[in-house]
């Protein structure tokens, strides 16, 4: 079943075509890798899908419902979570609060009921605390649950951001360059965990510009260059595609 469908998206920034009639399909339950040289438009795609920016033309569908014009928080409410290339942990809160913040949509309470600490909001808080600790445990961050998030090293902050997205219990997670800045040990841990979550039914779309990590875990890979899709398929096929190599090495086809 197609979970996410991007149709003919174009996004232009001041004359630069970040995305040019780009289309993509993400099936439920797979890990879709998105690779391409720097500046190919990958992060822009994520911004468009998550609603932070709007495309100049084209449509985006999530579970067959059009989300192109929706606001970012509405899109998240539908079940899409994401992380950011430049890690945006909520640095003014503790680690556990970051996770609990991710549960925002799932908790009961509004300005009135939370302020008055009505019984169901108090219960929701306790439940949230417990669940957040479980998520932290899964990611190996439980030991530092009370530390301010800003004190974590970069690798752990990225995990924290992943945890925050997971706390939403989304159906689709967009990971933007999750491995950049990680040591190879941390990268391996991350791969393992993504596999785990995939087994639990999560769909991933991962942007990376380092081929290595994505090729190992993705079921399908799409390659972008200059805002256009230039190859798509299982990693082994894409790896050997001549066009892809050209794009990465910036060779002109005529020179080959």
């Amino acid at each position, binding site marked *: 079943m197609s979970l996410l469908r991007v149709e003919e998206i174009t996004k232009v920034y001041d004359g630069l075509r970040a995305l040019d009639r780009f289309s993509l399909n993400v099936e439920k339950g797979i890990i879709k890798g998105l690779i391409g040289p720097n500046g190919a438009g990958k992060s822009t795609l994520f911004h468009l899908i998550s609603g932070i920016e709007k495309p100049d033309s084209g449509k985006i569908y999530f579970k067959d419902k059009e989300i192109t014009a929706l606001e970012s928080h509405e899109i998240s409410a539908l079940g899409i979570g994401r992380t950011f290339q430049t890690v945006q942990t909520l640095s003014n809160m503790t680690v556990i609060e970051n996770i609990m913040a991710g549960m*925002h949509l799932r908790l009961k*309470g509004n300005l009135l009921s939370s302020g008055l600490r009505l019984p169901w909001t108090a219960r929701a808080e306790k439940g949230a605390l417990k669940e957040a600790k479980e998520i932290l445990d899964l990611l190996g961050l439980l030991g530092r649950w009370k530390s301010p998030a800003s004190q974590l090293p970069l690798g752990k902050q990225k995990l924290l951001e992943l945890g925050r*997205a997971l706390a*939403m219990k989304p159906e689709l997670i967009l990971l933007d360059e999750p491995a950049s800045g990680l040591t190879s040990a941390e990268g391996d841990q991350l791969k393992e965990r993504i596999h785990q979550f995939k087994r639990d039914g999560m769909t991933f779309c991962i942007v990376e510009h380092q081929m290595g990590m994505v090729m190992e875990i993705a079921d399908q890979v799409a390659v972008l260059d200059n805002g256009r899709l230039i190859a798509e398929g299982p990693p082994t096929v894409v790896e050997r595609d001549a066009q892809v190599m050209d794009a990465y090495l910036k060779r002109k086809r005529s020179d080959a």
Partner: protein
Amino acid sequence: MVDSDKKQFRKRDFLYVIPLWLLSLIVPDADDLYSFRSKEFKRRELFYLGALLFVPLIWRDPHFHHLMVLAGIYAILALGLSLFLGYAGQISLGHAAFFGIGAYTTAILTTRYGFPPFLAFLISPFVAAVAAYLIGRPILKLKGYFLAIATLGFGEIFQVIVRESTVLTGGVIGIFDIPFFSIGGFSFDTYLKQYYLTWGVLLGLFLYSKNLVRSKMGRAFLAVAASEEAASTIGINVARTKLGVFVIGAAFAGFAGSLFASIMSIANPEAFSLNLSILIVIMVILGGMGNLYGPIFISILLTWLIDILGKYQAWSLPIYGVILILLLIFFPDGIGTRLGIRLIYLISYWSKKKRRDEGKV
């Protein structure tokens, strides 16, 4: 020779260290707020509550009571703004306007239409909240210092309107003879009674704020302050959250204004000026962002400071400006934040300096 020098150095250090250490015992560190249900924390809260309840009964100086009443009103103002500025990270330089709206609503309702003060007290924050809602919807779309200036502009426009609408608000002269706050015949006419009224209201609002801050809404505020982008991707409606905090802050100011009118018995435009807005912002900043206790302490401290300076009438305001600047320089994170660590830095800095100086001799 070295020993006597060391002794001298220690004695002098005590002068600096002791007051700061005492202060750090009383003012809670913001970091404490991160811990869930830490026992030490609860003991401190009981201490504060006890002090609030009993000190005015022991120290029966009416001037002290009067000061604490004022401090209480400022504390309510600071508390409301602290949610907007300290937690959600948005700046408002026009908060005094909502204070004024609350005060004038109570003044007009009680003096012109004979509303009972208690009813006026309930209506005033509501009016302030509505005003905040109307003004907030367009203004909160602005970011950073544009928002600051827009709120400043709003505050000034409010003052101009109040000054000019002589029929409604009594113009520059204001409204007089506002009846004291009373419930069912019991009138709060002495400073002591007003003290308990004000701080009682503050306590109620404080509990509300504390609950709010330790819930998903509090995290939503902080998230908006940390990263609006990230907040929107976890489902937080940033615009609505900002508006919500703004309205709450305004409602608090409305409560404060209503109390102010019922206690001072007068309401005039000069009391709701830009200077007050700035003062409230400074209270929140010096109290510490992301801290509910700090602003309350600072409002007590600053009220006393202004009172002390008032004795040196002419010098008071210039000194006030200087002290503010100095406080900002030395405590940019707020007095309530990491006082313990700051203490350690100060001690080590001074002792290093001493050793350096001695080394030269």
